[in-house]
C-alpha cells in the first residue's frame, strides 16, 4: 500500500507530457518531409475502392426487375446529416449516385429523393420509414444509419433490433434495401465508439440478406491509402465534396453489382 501513489501518478503523467513534446515535433518534421503533396491533394479520380469492399452476396431483385423490365427506378435515401453537405446538397453522395446511375442506365428513368432524419436514432426513424415508403413507393431504399445511435451510445442490442425491424418493414412494403454504415471519422474516434454499431449493422445485413455499403471501411481505406487525409482540418467544403463524389460513385457501382446489372460483373 503506497500512500504516495497519487503523487507518483501525477509525476508519471507529467513525465509523459514532457516526453511527448519532442516526439510531437519529430513527427511534425517527418510528416512534412514524407507526405507527398499528391496524397493530400487527391483528385476525385484517385479514390479507388478495392473489390472486396464492394462485394456482396445479397441481391436487389426489385431493382434488377425494374431495370430489365424498362420500368422507372425510384430510389429513396433515408439518412442523417452525414448524408448531405450543409449548403451544398447537390454535391452530396445521393446526388452523385443519381448522376452516376443515370450515366450507366441512360434508358431507365431514375428518380431519387432524400429524406434526412437529422438527430434521429434507428428506432426513431423506424416510425417514419413505413410512412415514407407508402408515400413514395420506392424500388430501392438506401438507409444510412448508426451515427446518431453511436453518438448517443444506444444499447447495440436495441440498435440491432431497430435496424432489423426497419429493414423488415421496408421489405414488407415491397422495397429493396441497401444499408449504409457510419463514416470513418478519426477525429472523433476518442469520443464516438463506432465498432459495436458497425458490427450490429453487419449482423442485420447478414440476417436479412441486405447489401451493406461499408462506408466506414471504404473511407478508412482511402485514409490509409492516402487518397484523403481525413484527420485534417479543412475549413471549406472542398474535401467533403470530393469525398462525397467518390462515395456516390462507389455506391452506384455497389448498387449495380448487387442488382447484378453489369454483365461484366457476372460470374
Amino acid at each position, binding site marked *: *500500500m*503506497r500512500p*504516495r*501513489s*497519487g503523487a*507518483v*501518478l*501525477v509525476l*508519471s*503523467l507529467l*513525465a*509523459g507530457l514532457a*516526453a*511527448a513534446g519532442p*516526439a*510531437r515535433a519529430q*513527427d*511534425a518534421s*517527418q*510528416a512534412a518531409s*514524407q*507526405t507527398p503533396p499528391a496524397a*493530400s491533394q487527391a483528385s476525385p479520380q484517385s479514390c479507388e475502392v478495392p473489390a472486396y*469492399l464492394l*462485394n456482396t*452476396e445479397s441481391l436487389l431483385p426489385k431493382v434488377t426487375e425494374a431495370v430489365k423490365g424498362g420500368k422507372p427506378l425510384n430510389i429513396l435515401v433515408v439518412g*442523417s*446529416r*452525414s448524408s448531405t*453537405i*450543409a449548403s451544398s446538397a447537390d454535391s452530396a453522395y445521393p446526388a452523385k449516385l443519381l448522376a452516376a446511375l443515370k450515366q450507366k442506365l441512360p434508358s431507365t428513368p431514375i428518380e431519387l429523393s432524400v429524406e434526412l432524419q437529422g438527430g434521429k436514432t434507428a428506432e426513431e426513424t423506424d416510425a417514419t420509414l413505413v410512412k415514407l415508403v407508402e408515400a413514395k413507393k420506392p424500388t430501392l431504399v438506401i438507409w444510412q444509419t448508426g*451515427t446518431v445511435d453511436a*453518438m*448517443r*451510445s*444506444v444499447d*447495440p442490442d436495441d440498435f440491432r433490433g431497430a435496424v432489423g425491424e426497419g429493414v423488415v418493414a421496408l421489405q414488407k412494403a415491397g422495397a429493396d434495401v441497401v444499408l449504409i454504415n457510419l*463514416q470513418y*471519422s*478519426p*477525429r*472523433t*474516434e*476518442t*469520443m464516438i*465508439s463506432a465498432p*459495436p454499431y458497425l*458490427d*450490429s449493422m453487419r449482423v442485420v445485413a*447478414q*440476417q436479412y440478406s441486405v447489401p451493406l455499403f461499408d462506408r466506414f471501411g471504404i473511407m478508412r481505406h482511402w485514409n*490509409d491509402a*492516402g487518397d484523403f487525409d*481525413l484527420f485534417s*482540418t*479543412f475549413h471549406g*467544403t472542398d*474535401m*467533403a465534396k470530393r469525398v*462525397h463524389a467518390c462515395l456516390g460513385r462507389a455506391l452506384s457501382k455497389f448498387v449495380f453489382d448487387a442488382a447484378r446489372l453489369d454483365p461484366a460483373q457476372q460470374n
Partner: protein
Amino acid sequence: MSSIADPVAATPRSDSKVATLAAPAITLPVTGERELRLDLFRGMALWLIFVDHLPANILTWFTIRNYGFSDATEIFIFISGYTAAFVYGRAMLERGFVVASARIMRRVWQIYVAHVFLFTIFLAEISYVATRFENPLYSEEMGILDFLKQPDVTIVQALLLRFRPVNMDVLPLYIVLMLFLPIILWLMKWRPDVTLGLSVLLYALTWQFDWYLTAYPGGFWIFNPFAWQLLFVFGAWCALGGAARMSRILSSPVTLWLCIVYLLFAFFVTLTWHIPQISFLMPKRLEQWMYPITKTDLDVLRFAHFLALAALTVRFLPRDWPGLKSRWLRPLILCGQHSLEIFCLGIFLAFAGHFVLAEVGGGAFTHALISLVGILIMWGVAWVISWYKHSADKDASKAKRMVNADMAGGSV
C-alpha cells in the same frame, strides 16, 4: 510440470509447502519472490490496450484481438482479480475483514482519483478539438461535443462515473469490482467454490435478464460489471488456491487439445473478419448462432478464448522460465509492476497520440512511430517510478521489505 499445479501463485513450491493460513477454505502461497509471469502479462496487456486505443497501424497487428475473440482487457481484469485477492486476501486472513476492507477502499479512492484526473485531461483535449476543428464532412459527428455546452451536468455525471468518454471504461469497471472485493473475499474465505458458483450465477442471470448499468447521456456501461465480475472473481478464485485445485484439469492432454482446437477455430473466424474474401467459408448457421460476440457482456466465446489462452500459457511457460529474468522482457515486467500508473499513462498517451495525428497528420509511418514512442514512454516512466520506490523515497528501504507492495499498489 509441477508448475502447472500452481500457475500464477507466488512460489514455485509444490503443494505441500503452500502455507495454509488461518482459514482452511482458501490457501495462500507463502510470500516469496514475485510472480514475474503476472507482471509480464499485465505489462503486455497494458501495452496492447495502449496500441488498441490508437488508430489502427502496423503495431495493431501484433495485438491479440486480431487473432481470436478475447483481447487484452480480459488478461488485465483477470490478473487484477488475481493480484487483488492475493494481496487483500492475505490482509483479510491476517488482520480481519474491517482492516482489509479499509485498505481496499483506500485503493478504490486512488483509482477514482486517477479516473477523474484522466477525465480532466480528456476534457482539455476535446475542448481544444471542439474550438479548432471544423470539417463540413464531419459536422454530424462533431455534434458529440455538444455536451461541452452543459458542463454542469456533464462533469457531475462524470464524477458519478456515468459519463465516460470512449476508452475510459476500464477504470470505472475496476472501481466497481474493487468496491465489491471485500464481500467477494469474505465469501471466498468461507467457501471459494460457492463464491465462484455465485459469480457464474450472476453472470448467467445477467445474460438471462439483460441487467446493465445505465450511463449518461444515454446507453449503458461499455463493460457491464455484472458480466465482467466473472473474470475478476475467477482470478481471485485462482489466486486463493483454485489454480492449484485445477492442476489436474490443466495438465490433462484433453484440455490441451480442446484449447488448441478452440484457439484455431477462433483464429479462423477472426481471419474471416480481416479477409472478407474468405468469409463465404463460414457456415451461415454458425454465423447466426455466434454473432454478435459482445464485449460489453463478456461473451461466453470471449471468456472461453481467454481460458484457453491462459491454460496454454500456464502449461508452456513455467514460472521459473529463465527468460522471465532476461533483459528483453524487463520493460514489460516493469510496466506490469506499476499497473495503475502505467494504465493511466497509456490512456493519456492514446489521447496525446490521437491529438498528434490530428494536428500534424501523417501516414502509416507516423502512426507506427507514435505507438512505439508511447511504449518507450511507458517503459521510461515505469522505470522512474520503480527508481523512486527503491532509491529516492524516504521509506524506500521499507518498501523493499514489503515484498508485495507493488502488487498491492499496482493491482489495477
